[in-house]
């Protein structure tokens, strides 16, 4: 019977979705940043690199940071799930532990991506990271495209999409946070938009550019753009609704609250509210992710093997 799903599988699926989205978003952010750094004649490499670390919630350390270190740590470090390679590696292992729940095409996509990374990493040392980052972006799109076209719309699918949506809100909030946090470290608006893959969509909606509150409004509040916080929250809420009890769901509550707050936000006051709003958004995602874990995949301690004779 397929009406139940193992907690372990659910957890693996959620994190597969999260990690692939994380790799994708990290790739986009790095690409936009590095490109911008090259194009901006007045760049300060150390400052720009530090803002990248700040966005991704990682420690830059005390010494000056350059682009190579950024790539080593935020793209190529297989040991950290905060880097692209680490996130894709973790996604692959999670998908492998849930192989009966994901389609074989999805698994193959992650597996072949993982194997293709090494070559591109070497090439990146010669000619720069562009091809590497592009590979990541394409494979992430392929993965989610395969999820959309080869998985039944059952709970397994919902966990993948839930993970992707939570991570998406988190990444968008991180991008905006750094803009609010410190202007000297901040990326400019076009960079923010292209890091979210939103530059062309934004131009279509506003027929204009770079107006501070409008970019924040777009990335947070646009109903139709799939990477906006509101759109991702709505999707996450839909998944949780389908997965859970109709009322009083501690996983759904923080998400639903934030979603309504965003929907009815007075956009004139957005600029003033932004710092607090971003903080609350991030807290809501963390609270929801924790509640999802409590509810759907209660923690199992490591299986300990008693040593004979001990």
């Amino acid at each position, binding site marked *: 019977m397929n009406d139940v799903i193992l907690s372990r599988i659910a957890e693996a699926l959620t*994190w597969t979705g999260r990690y692939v989205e*994380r790799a994708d978003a990290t790739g986009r952010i790095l690409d936009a940043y590095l490109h911008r750094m090259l194009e901006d*004649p007045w760049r300060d490499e150390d400052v720009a690199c530090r803002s990248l670390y700040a966005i991704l919630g990682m420690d830059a350390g005390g010494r000056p940071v350059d682009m190579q270190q950024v790539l080593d740590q935020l793209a190529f470090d297989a040991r950290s799930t905060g880097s692209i390679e680490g996130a894709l590696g973790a996604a692959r292992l999670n998908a492998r532990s849930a192989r009966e729940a994901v389609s074989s095409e999805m698994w193959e996509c992650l597996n072949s991506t993982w194997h293709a990374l090494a070559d591109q990493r070497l090439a990146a040392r010669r*000619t720069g990271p562009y091809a590497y980052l592009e590979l990541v972006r394409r494979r992430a799109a392929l993965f989610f495209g395969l999820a959309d076209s080869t998985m039944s719309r059952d709970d397994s699918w919902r966990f993948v999409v839930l993970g992707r949506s939570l991570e998406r809100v988190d990444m968008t909030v991180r991008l905006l946070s750094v803009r609010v946090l410190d202007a000297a470290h*901040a990326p400019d608006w076009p960079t923010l938009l292209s890091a979210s893959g939103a530059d*062309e969509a934004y131009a279509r909606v506003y027929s204009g550019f770079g107006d501070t509150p409008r970019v924040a409004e777009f990335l947070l509040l646009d109903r139709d753009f799939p990477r906006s916080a509101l759109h991702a929250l709505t999707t996450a809420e839909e998944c949780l609704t389908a997965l859970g009890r109709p009322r009083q769901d501690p996983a759904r509550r923080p998400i639903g609250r934030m979603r309504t707050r965003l929907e009815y936000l007075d956009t004139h006051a957005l600029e003033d509210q932004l*710092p607090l709003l971003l903080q609350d958004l991030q807290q809501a995602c963390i609270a929801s992710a924790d509640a999802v874990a409590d509810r759907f995949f209660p923690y199992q301690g490591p299986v300990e093997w008693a040593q004979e004779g001990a």
Partner: protein
Amino acid sequence: MADIFDAYALADAWDEMFERPGEVRTAYEPVLAALQPIEPSELRFRADQMARAFTDRGVTYAFAGEERPWPLDLVPRILDALEWDLIQRGVGQRVRALEAYLADAYGPARAFEDGVVPWRLLLNSPHFHRAAHGVEPPGGVRIHVAGIDLVRDEAGDFRVLEDNVRVPSGVSYVIENRRAMTRIFPSLFAEQHVLPVDGYAQRLLAALRAAAPDGTDDPRVVVLTPGPNNAAYFEHALLARLMGVQLVEGHDLVCRNNRVWMRTTRGEVPVHVVYRRLDDDFLDPLHFRPDSVIGCPGIMGAAMAGTVTLANAVGNGIADDKLLYTYVPDLIRYYLGEEPILPNVESYRPDEPGQLEAVLDQIEQLVIKPVDGAGGQGIVIGPKADRDTIERTRKAVIADPRGFIAQRPVALSTSPTLAGEHMAPRHIDLRPFAVNDGNDVWVLPGGLTRVALQEGNLIVNSSQGGGSKDTWVLAEGPTESPAPLSAGDPLAVAPRQLGPDGTPTVVQEGAQQQ
């Protein structure tokens, strides 16, 4: 070690990179230092990678019936801050003078009355459209976008080769060249301070919106293209996408009661500004060529009624006629009261008394250009032409002196260009792009540098097999840093949430601590 510059022999022209053999110009030092240690095979690898990226992105052009990737050479062309300042001021001046000329020619015609320009220049021009007479464009702008072609002569001075104020194309390649160079060759940029080119679409959109008819609150701008079969369709689509506006073809528009509408799924929607990438002749079959099916019947009537702005304006062709070109320095003095910042190439006007004979006498030493030729077509370079061509040209000029100008041949400056496995000097020119919003003429830092890929060739047009180079304008000083959005307490960005890494949660025997 084999050096890709080993075989570099300077041609008989100003070289952009080398002052003398082995002596590099200051601005090029970092680029040379970055390129020199690279193996030829590595350069080839990157060139191939770039070609593939262009093909994938659809940045191609038609050559001999074949779709080829846009030819971008790996060695950038560099302009230092001083050179750029001169070019920028010179191009701006030129555009202002040509604007004044257009306003005059389609209005009071003072310059003709005052004898600065002969009347016949206007009345004989195939681009003089009575339909444009008396149309007063919003903000007085007729040249919203201009491309002024420059060359550098043997002495290193920039000279204007021609003005393009109808539908100048090529700016998309400036944007794509930069994109490709920063992605395929990031190391070249590492130590440089190059002015960015990504502000173009924003400037263009602002200028187009500023050109909307008076009283339009939120003007709707569209790009009008002849369609996917046009050689510049890629550019039309790119500009529409970057500006976030609709790319329309003639049959997407409909004119009624002197207004322009576009057909959409929500019904007909009014259009206020049309950035048209269609020549005058094809724009409106009611006014121009009745056999044209790519235009929009009635659009000219709407423009005359002032309900829609056409950018660039109809009839601009009288200002980039090559014969008018010879008068531009006079026009700058006449309208602006300034001395020309950028000189012309020395030119003859065969239709003026005495000059026809002078041209015919030395026709083997001159460049003969048809006044309305485009894309390098019809140009005869005397010193390189054979007897038959010279004779044919001589007859053509005698038959129609108004149809040609003659110029002293300029040995265009050369720039190192990858030819096979090594660098060789190739002739280049430069087309900077100017955007006029009515208050200010803004010039995109850089422009399109075109390269004649064959040795000694002076014609650089891509339709004749030319290539291109990324054009760098070196920056002088820093801009202000952006203001903080919020002066509140610094936010803490939360650490990443981590999930299981998917390895089985089994503690292995032996690794277990008791």
